[in-house]
């Protein structure tokens, strides 16, 4: 009988937990309340825990507990995707805060204390904690655990905690009506239980493969850095013009066009009497000659990327950062978007970086941090455009020290568009957050997609492959025809909140002709409203509709 585990056991149990969740990923995905084709709690939690597992696995076999805790904590924080992923990362973080200070073996009492801290951190991460979720399951774990002390046996302790966690999970439909209606238990809680089950199995001595693959194996990996052969132009150059001649917007645009004609990665940032420029080109001499027309040159840096690629493969990424912080522009924007049309729309409105993602693919905290890093701006607004990405964005904000990050809690693409339109560059981040949030509140969003399984939701019976119109608070319309269901959904939106402008963003599976036919009907029906039809190109959702 033992009441403690050693560092190596903790490490391996953690890896086993991560592996077990990875294996059960699809099962967790299917526990989605909405029968939409994008259930991804399992994927998000797996990507989060695997990010931590990779950092842990990369440590030497005899790494001290402190190091393992650090890897678990930072790996999951940075890899966090989706709300459940963010909560999971906070659970690990809280736990590690206690465990990292443990000397020698980890006792039951150490674990109890760490669970307490874990639950506290997780609840704090959520603005309005909801019971019947992963939070409740984690609290259940702690409540059972604290009944034990160091006089107990570790094996019995683990088994009892797991039994209780399963009971709490089974109770979640009683706490959250949406779960009961959909006939599922909470997916985040189920994900957490799968991790715990992995730990238990390993502790019991079951044979398990603890090899952690690289990122690409867990599914959607982030973009790989460019290989040397991708370098199109030899020189990466950056310089600043101390402007002595007039350099207005027109001249700036002309110069940018010229730089683009000379190569790629062209950028210009003008602050006061300085213009900082970067470009990748084969002919730096010509570029400098032209720049001299506008003033004296300073901070000139020219790097040969081909010779440099061998020694410093990261050099390319650095070019954005080469812009001195004093040259940063006032504001930047990051939007999470999907579909060519919507992405183009956000760029047109002034977004500096677009992170591809949305319902089917939640970007991680790390993805958002990378985008933040690339933008030379003092204040950066992040538009998550999905309720499941807001927490990861908040986490990225908390991890950023050198820039002011404003996370605008946009839950849908149309909300994000409205928020961005309402941002005034002269106002402070705080003022803008207030006015953008207020403007978003005036937008109601409807999304039209198909059901992946039979269910009953919001009092509506839904069959597999039915078309559903989902509003901000639930299902608004169900039918067989895309057009009819969309119109029915808009009817409800107009009755509930009303508005003067109906925007229709049609997805990649809708033809322009169909979209035009729909908008003609809407124009006739709502003649007092303005109507805007935009090719959004989004997958899965036939139509995104906003009424404001």
């Amino acid at each position: 009988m033992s009441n403690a585990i050693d560092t190596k056991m903790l490490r391996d149990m953690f890896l086993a937990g991560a592996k077990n969740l990875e294996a059960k990923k699809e099962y967790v995905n299917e526990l989605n309340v909405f029968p939409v084709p994008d259930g991804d709690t399992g994927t998000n939690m797996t990507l989060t825990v695997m990010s931590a597992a990779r950092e842990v696995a990369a440590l030497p076999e005899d790494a001290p507990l402190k190091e393992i805790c650090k890897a678990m904590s930072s790996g999951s924080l940075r890899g966090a995707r989706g709300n459940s992923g963010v909560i999971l990362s906070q659970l690990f973080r809280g736990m590690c805060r206690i465990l990292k200070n443990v000397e020698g073996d980890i006792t039951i009492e150490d674990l109890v204390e760490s669970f307490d801290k874990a639950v506290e951190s997780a609840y704090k991460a959520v603005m309005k904690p909801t019971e019947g979720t992963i939070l409740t399951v984690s609290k259940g774990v702690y409540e059972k655990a604290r009944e034990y002390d160091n006089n107990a046996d570790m094996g019995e302790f683990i088994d009892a905690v797991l039994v209780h966690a399963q009971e709490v999970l089974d109770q979640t439909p009683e706490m959250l009506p949406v779960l009961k209606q959909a006939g599922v238990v909470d997916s985040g809680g189920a994900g957490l239980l799968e991790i715990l089950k992995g730990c238990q199995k390993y502790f019991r001595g079951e044979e398990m493969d603890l090899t952690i693959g690289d990122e690409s194996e867990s599914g959607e990996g982030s973009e790989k850095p460019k290989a040397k052969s991708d370098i199109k132009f030899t020189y990466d150059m950056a310089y600043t013009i101390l402007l002595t001649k007039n350099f207005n917007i027109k001249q700036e645009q002309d110069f940018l066009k010229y730089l683009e004609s000379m190569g790629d990665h062209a950028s210009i940032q003008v602050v006061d009497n300085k213009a900082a420029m970067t470009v990748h080109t084969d002919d730096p001499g010509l570029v400098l000659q032209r720049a001299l027309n506008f003033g004296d040159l300073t901070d000139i840096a020219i790097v040969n990327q081909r010779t440099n690629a061998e020694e410093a493969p990261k050099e390319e990424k650095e070019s954005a950062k080469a812009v001195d912080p004093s040259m940063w522009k006032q504001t930047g924007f990051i939007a999470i978007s999907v579909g060519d049309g919507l992405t183009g729309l956000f760029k047109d409105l002034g977004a500096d970086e677009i992170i591809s993602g949305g319902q089917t693919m939640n970007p991680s905290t790390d993805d958002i941090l990378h985008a933040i890093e690339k933008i030379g701006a003092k204040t950066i607004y992040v538009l998550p455009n999905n309720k499941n990405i807001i927490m990861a964005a908040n986490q990225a904000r908390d991890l950023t020290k050198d820039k002011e990050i404003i996370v605008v809690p946009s839950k849908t693409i149309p909300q994000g568009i409205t928020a961005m339109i309402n941002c005034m560059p002269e106002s402070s981040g705080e003022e803008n957050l207030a006015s953008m949030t207020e403007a978003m509140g005036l937008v109601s969003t409807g999304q039209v997609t198909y059901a992946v399984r039979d269910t009953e939701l919001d009092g509506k019976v839904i069959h597999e492959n039915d078309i559903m119109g989902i509003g901000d608070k639930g299902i608004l319309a169900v039918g067989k025809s895309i057009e009819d269901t969309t119109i029915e959904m808009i009817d409800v939106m107009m009755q509930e909140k009303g508005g003067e402008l109906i925007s229709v963003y049609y997805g990649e599976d809708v033809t322009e002709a169909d979209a035009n036919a729909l908008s003609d009907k809407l124009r006739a029906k709502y003649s007092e409203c303005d109507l805007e039809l935009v090719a959004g190109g989004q997958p899965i959702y036939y139509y995104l509709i906003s009424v404001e």
Partner: protein
Amino acid sequence: MSKIAIMTDSNSGISRQEAKERGIHLVPMPFTIDEVNYLEGVNLNQDQFFEFLEKKAVVQTSQPSPADVIDLYKRLLNTHDEVLYIPMSSGLSGSCQTAHMLASEEPFENKVFVVDNQRISVTQRQSVLDALELAERGMSASEIRDILIKDKFNCSIYIMMDTLYYLKRGGRITPAAAAVGTILKIKPVLQIQGEKLDAYAKARTREQGKKIMLEALKKDIETRFGGLDAHTNERVQLHLAYTRDLAAEQELGDEMMEAFPGLDRPEIFPLSLSIACHTGPGALGVGVSQKLKV
């Protein structure tokens, strides 16, 4: 008491007819359209101007020629002791600077006073009328200038544009234009206050834009003009200006009166052409300024 000539340019929106009736001396703004020179209000009226715009003619604005300004200074000093010139905002044109430079030379020094109070359109017009009133009361040109300059920021104009086409094409008021995309129909509301012409807000529909402008006026009155109370009408003058769509502006006027019961309904004036060439047709404008303290 010295005899003062009040001089302004056609950006004030004051017509030649009105100028004559009130005894105001008007400098017409020159425009070059498809390489032909015109003078605002002389051989170029609003209708003709918008016909040119719609035909996508190349419109260039410039400042009044120094020779014309000097001629008028001279002519006015033959019949008056002093000249007070209120040109368009120095933030939007170099004409003020030129007029100032010319006035500082012999024989105009200390006789011609140029007011750089950074106004345009309806609020510039208000300054001209105020100047007439103050001259009537017996003040000298320099005293009037000081009062107008002290009062220069006590006004705002908001203009909602129906289209971004002209603003982008002009390439001149870029910071305002740069922040607005082109894929969606967005109606920017610009604010003119002091030397700045800024994007104030962006509306998606006309109704929304009108609400934004009336809210902005309310905020100005509450924060800068002593609030809304029984005496607001003694302190505050509202303004209405537009391009092309008079009916829409009248409707906006009705809504303005509903929002500010108890204030005098302002007369409606067309926006002067140097603004109109950037806003294009269909722009709706409102303004507020402080009334002269009695």
